[in-house]
């Protein structure tokens, strides 16, 4: 009986450890993230790399925005598009993603906020074949709304900043909080005017 109990306890302990290992390995933190948001968001770039990036100017809202933490930094340039006759504008951007979401039923999910910065030589609103849904001025530069107002695009300096958020009000608040990542720009300062691109 004593041996049976020892085996039972050992089995239970092993199960707990193995289960916990799988969860921690996949999520990097704790088991609660499984319930809330599934797998941890994978980053393909880092804040440190962004800070020393030598390309175009990058902007973010820091480590969190209105309670949503920075959960991923992405840099996945499309250099050899699968369909080059279509992909004339090749995505070349750095993204800062705030807040998480839960993919379900084989579907992906949209995070609450993404700030996607491309060189303005890649594209500007003038290249978009959809009508905008409004224009505004943010910190001295023109902002153009798309996607029912949930997407705001700013061309500043040599960068195109595309903010994918939840509403017109939210993306405007984000624009008001943008700060430089690899350039000196603090909240409250005007954004640099667009630089002419050949």
């Amino acid at each position, binding site marked *: 009986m004593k041996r049976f109990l020892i085996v039972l306890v050992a089995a239970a302990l092993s199960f707990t450890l193995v289960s916990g290992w799988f969860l921690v390995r996949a999520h990097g933190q704790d088991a609660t993230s499984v319930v809330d948001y599934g*797998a941890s968001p994978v980053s393909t770039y880092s804040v440190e790399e962004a800070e020393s990036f030598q390309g175009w100017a990058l902007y973010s809202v820091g480590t969190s925005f209105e309670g949503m933490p920075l959960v991923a930094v992405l840099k996945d340039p499309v250099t050899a598009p699968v369909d080059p006759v279509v992909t004339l504008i090749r995505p070349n951007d750095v993204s800062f993603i705030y807040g998480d979401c839960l*993919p379900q039923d084989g579907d*992906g999910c949209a995070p609450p906020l993404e700030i996607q910065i491309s060189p303005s030589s890649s594209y500007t609103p003038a290249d978009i074949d959809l009508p905008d849904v409004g224009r505004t001025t943010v910190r001295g530069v023109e902002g153009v709304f798309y996607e029912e107002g949930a997407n705001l695009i700013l061309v500043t300096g040599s960068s195109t900043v595309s903010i994918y958020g939840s509403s017109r009000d939210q993306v405007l608040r984000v624009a008001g909080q943008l700060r430089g990542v690899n350039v000196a720009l603090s909240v409250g300062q005007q954004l640099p005017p667009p630089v002419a691109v050949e």
Partner: protein
Amino acid sequence: MLLAVLLAAVVGGVCGGVLFGGSTGQAHFQTYEYTLKDCPAAYKRQVDPINIVFPGYADGPTTVNHIQFHTKWDAGGGSTQYFSSHGSCGAMYKQRAWACPLGTVPSFACDRFHIRVRKTYHSDGTKGETATGDAHHEDWVDDPFNPGCLVPSVIGSHAVDKNGSNGSGFDKGRREMRLAFNDGYAAGNHWWYSEYWNNRRNFKQCDGDWARSDGYTVHIRLHNSLH
């Protein structure tokens, strides 16, 4: 005076009809740029970018008939998603995907191309009847190192191919669709062109990777006869 007002109204109505598609049945083309988990359209319900538009004669049955004929994507299996156009939101008409090898359990548990489609709310004066879709390539993920793909189902889940130097699964699916409609037999019947919509939001997949469209939609014209 009254006659003049009536005449102006009639002329204005005719001109408006010519320029803008006129009646409620011939409004301009408009769609929400992403498929949805549910209605109404909102960012938190976005699932996939719209990357295919079928102009011409794209009612539901014709669209699915053409997709099956040209792509041979003749299987189903997948979640119900929703589409919104002109503020009218509703469930997809149908979905089509590669058939998995015989004996696959469940029957859709394989890497595959996949699309969901729905006719837009209005016809367009120039484009005709239009339908939109979310073509993509997705992998079946069921290993224990990706438990996010095992929740809530324990059997696994699909994840759209992540971003890479060639693009993502969304770009691959769109290319596959475009090429299928432009094979030797179909050439001429199904002319195509692309538009840049910039619907490049990243979508988290069940394995934690990200997939986004390159922002292009390909428009493939459908003719008015079934195959």
